[in-house]
């Protein structure tokens, strides 16, 4: 089981780290120029992607765009490093629930919008593929949140 958990941690953590970095760095991919980090990160685009979902109250879209990638980066990073891994898995599972709800809402409303899942790198529209991916990630994160134990937690709870 240990090896399974390790693999899952690396996969989910990796996905979250990558998705965070492309948002923070405003990474652009074009056929002509390949992968490009913009010199000055610009969240305008991602804030627009968030706004397109019409899920957060309009005023809060920027706040979501500012904070979300860094929460993803921190949770993904800790999960890979194995620090507070259970808590990180809980955060990631909770985020996946939020993402699923947002994508589901966009599909129900029939919004033809960009997913924004990996920032501007993937121009994919919201759709069942994104929904399916997120379900798989949620299942993996939920498994970890259930199976993992944070070492200090175990000792403190044993002492209690």
């Amino acid at each position: 089981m240990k090896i399974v958990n390790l693999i899952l941690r690396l996969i989910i953590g990796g996905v979250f780290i990558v998705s965070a970095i492309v948002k923070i760095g405003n990474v652009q991919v074009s056929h002509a120029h390949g992968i490009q980090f913009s010199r000055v990160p610009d969240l305008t685009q991602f804030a627009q992607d968030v706004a397109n979902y019409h899920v957060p109250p309009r005023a809060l879209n920027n706040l979501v765009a500012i904070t979300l990638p860094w929460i993803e980066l921190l949770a993904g990073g800790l999960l890979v490093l194995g620090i507070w891994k259970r808590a990180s898995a809980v955060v990631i599972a909770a985020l996946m629930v939020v993402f699923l709800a947002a994508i589901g809402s966009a599909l129900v409303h029939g919004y033809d919008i960009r997913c924004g899942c990996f920032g501007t790198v993937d121009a994919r529209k919201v759709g069942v593929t994104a929904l399916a991916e997120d379900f798989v990630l949620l299942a993996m994160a939920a498994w970890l949140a259930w199976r993992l134990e944070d070492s200090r937690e175990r000792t403190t709870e044993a002492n209690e």
Partner: protein
Amino acid sequence: MAGTLRRALVIVMAGAALGLAANAISPRRIPLLTPPKAPPQASDTVALEEAKAMWGSGTAFFLDARATADYQAGHIAGALSLPIEEFDAHYPPIQPMLTPDLRIVVYCDGQECDLSHRLMDRLRELGYHNVRVLTNGWTSWHTAGLLTHAGGQP
């Protein structure tokens, strides 16, 4: 479990704090709260009938704010592609055709579509003051049976 939830909360708060700090020092920081949308003004939009008249008389320049693929799949005949999301790449070849007083109609697709408004704002920033949005442009144009084309930039 309580410990786990507390730590999860710490991760969320720390991540949010990092994000706020990064945004605060970013030269292109965005406002913490999204500024309220300015109420749409009559002068910002153009009705289909009027757009049709301008199109027919050739007195307006039509720009398609949607992604290139959408443009290629079908666009208002004579419109040029200027996807707002890749504005910097697509603007230079179009710039020589524009003058500050030129009447410009921008459009995207769907009532909720924001691309044309963003393109209008961007063009106005560049000094083109005679820009208006044809709301739900693509759908209303082709459902009205008006002339359309498919394919790349002429």
